[in-house]
């Protein structure tokens, strides 16, 4: 009415002038609509602009028909176009509705699962990024050669005292043995290592425990040398050393391209040939690096240790992980030695994890009730579908939690490359136990506070009753499902007539209270 009346009033007099700027006005109006359309979500923009341009055509026909319009008519059209901004903002706000849907997920089963999945992805991602964890999972063998013994003098008993001299070792090796079919010798020394040659500074000088060992020691132990360059010839080149795992992680940052690095060790230059795991067999003496030498080069140096592999006949002589050995020495003398079984004492991460989980399951009843608290006040029968949903949700939570615990414990134990392998085992065991214990406690507590109908967490706790009247009347905490399905009554003090929590299923007469937050039951 307003627009027509303004047109009928005949205020436009300068039609000739209007002819000149009408195209500019049209351009301005279309530009205004285009600008406003930028506020609308991309998927709705095309239809929105189509409607407004269609309307603009009709508004222009009514207010500023070609050749008959004036300033006032164009102003009316411009005002119409400016209204498009308000409409666009309205559309934009309406497009934010899905965010409200996300907000209504608060406390829902899906939110819980999504959070657990996110934590799992993060812990798994961190495990993949940490070189220590990667090395633990993929590099080292879980089983070494069985039936190995460490031979030492009986006087040294189980103390780690080197007691076998290279001459003895050579004589045993040259003779045909009945109880052993393989020998390897090593002795540990302390050597100054100058890492400055590869770091370019003097700060890299340190002292390592270096084991001078037979060339067959790793083959006998069954340990692979990682990162070795298979095609490299050693003839006429520098002596080679094999780094221990701890040194490789500590000094070289677990760099897989460590092979070929040259450094000064004592008075000679040596080249790194690869990396082996350390500590796995509990070999005596701290060994940071191994220098493999032929038997002839061992000379008549200090005493060391001999590792031997038992034949079936030798295995039969084993008693309580030990075997007594009598050796005929020079001048018809006899040496009494002892062979102590070398066993893999470090279990794989999976084995440790299973053991810690078992311990946590045993300890769980001590810190929380294992009941799911599904008793109800009114005789409400939960459908099989809802029960299935509830149990599926519980199972999903447990599976995700256990996976998270596995990866987080690996991150904690093996993420720090400076931590020794022995300590890492304990870190993994303890962290897995604690996380499983308190994680499962949370899972059960969370499950007990999930509405059996919609699986949302009950909220708005309210204390009902008085503590002094516990044995006379109901005293406890009442929580409600914001979907309007149930109320949860948790007694403050379990009594013979109200020992565990109970659900009160609400009928449809309560719906109006929850009209704004009602959730579709699954």
């Amino acid at each position, binding site marked *: 009415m307003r*627009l027509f009346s303004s047109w009928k009033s005949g205020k436009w007099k300068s039609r000739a002038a209007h002819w000149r700027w009408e195209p500019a006005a049209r351009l301005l109006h279309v530009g205004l609509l285009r600008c406003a359309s930028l506020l609308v979500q991309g998927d709705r923009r095309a239809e929105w602009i189509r409607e407004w341009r269609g309307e603009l055509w*009709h508004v222009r026909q009514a207010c500023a028909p070609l050749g008959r319009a004036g300033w006032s008519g164009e102003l009316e059209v411009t005002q*119409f176009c400016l209204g498009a901004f*308000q409409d666009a903002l309205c559309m934009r706000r309406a497009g934010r509705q899905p965010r409200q849907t996300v907000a209504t997920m608060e406390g829902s089963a899906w939110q819980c699962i999504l959070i657990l999945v996110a934590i799992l992805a993060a812990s798994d991602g961190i495990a993949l990024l940490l070189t220590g964890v990667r090395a633990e999972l993929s590099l080292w063998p879980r089983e070494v050669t069985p039936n190995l013994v460490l031979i030492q003098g009986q006087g040294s008993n189980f103390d780690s005292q080197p007691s076998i001299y290279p001459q003895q070792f050579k004589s045993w090796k040259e003779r045909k043995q009945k109880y052993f079919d393989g020998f390897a010798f090593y002795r540990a020394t302390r050597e100054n290592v100058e890492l400055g040659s590869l770091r370019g500074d003097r700060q890299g000088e340190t002292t390592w425990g270096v084991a001078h060992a037979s060339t067959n020691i790793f083959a006998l132990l069954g340990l692979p040398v990682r990162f070795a360059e298979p095609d490299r010839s050693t003839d006429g080149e520098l002596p080679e050393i094999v780094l221990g795992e701890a040194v490789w992680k500590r000094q070289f940052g677990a760099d897989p391209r460590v092979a070929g690095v040259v450094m000064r060790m004592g008075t000679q230059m040596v080249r790194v040939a690869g990396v082996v795991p350390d500590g796995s067999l509990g070999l005596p003496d701290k060994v940071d690096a191994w220098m493999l030498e032929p038997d002839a080069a061992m000379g008549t140096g200090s005493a060391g240790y001999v590792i031997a592999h038992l034949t079936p006949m030798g295995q039969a002589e084993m008693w309580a992980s030990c075997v007594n050995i009598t050796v005929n020495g020079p001048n018809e003398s006899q040496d009494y030695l002892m062979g102590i079984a070398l066993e893999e004492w470090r279990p794989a991460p999976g084995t440790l994890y299973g053991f810690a989980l078992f311990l946590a399951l045993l300890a769980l009843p001590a810190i929380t009730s294992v009941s799911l608290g599904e008793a109800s006040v009114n005789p409400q029968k939960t459908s099989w579908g809802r029960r299935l949903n509830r149990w599926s949700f519980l199972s999903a939570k447990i599976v995700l939690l256990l996976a998270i615990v596995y990866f987080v414990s690996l991150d904690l134990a093996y993420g720090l490359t400076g931590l020794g392998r022995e300590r890492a085992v304990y870190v993994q065991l303890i962290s897995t136990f604690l996380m499983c214990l308190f994680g499962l406690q949370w899972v059960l507590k969370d499950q007990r506070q999930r509405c059996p109908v919609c699986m949302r967490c009950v909220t708005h706790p309210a204390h009902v009753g008085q503590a002094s009247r516990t044995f006379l009347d109901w005293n406890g905490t009442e929580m409600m499902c914001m979907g309007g399905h149930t109320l949860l009554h948790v007694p403050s003090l379990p009594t013979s007539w109200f020992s565990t929590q109970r659900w009160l299923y609400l009928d449809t007469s309560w719906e109006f209270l929850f009209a704004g937050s009602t959730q579709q039951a699954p």
Partner: protein
Amino acid sequence: MAREPQVSETKLSHTAALILQALDAGFVYGFSIMEMTGLPSGTVYPAMRRLERDELIRSHWEKQSIADAEQRPPRKYYKLTAAGKATLDASRRRYPLLERLIPSEEAKTV
């Protein structure tokens, strides 16, 4: 527990009731409602978005062939839904002057 539509109990603002009344009177697109009610475009179109969101009105596009025949762009038409009619009845009881402002016999095509 599904939410039941509470159409007849929806409380509309005066503007929204006016737009519903205009639609019922036969003013079936935004510009005609603007003309009929005297409301600016920045009020009418957002209100119609909200009414459509609440399923009180629904929209459809005019056939392209009709628009082509008349050498103009197609336009979007709106009409009341059953819920919208019920809400309008409730609004008429709330705003008795609504029918006097826009009588149904004024329905026409602009």
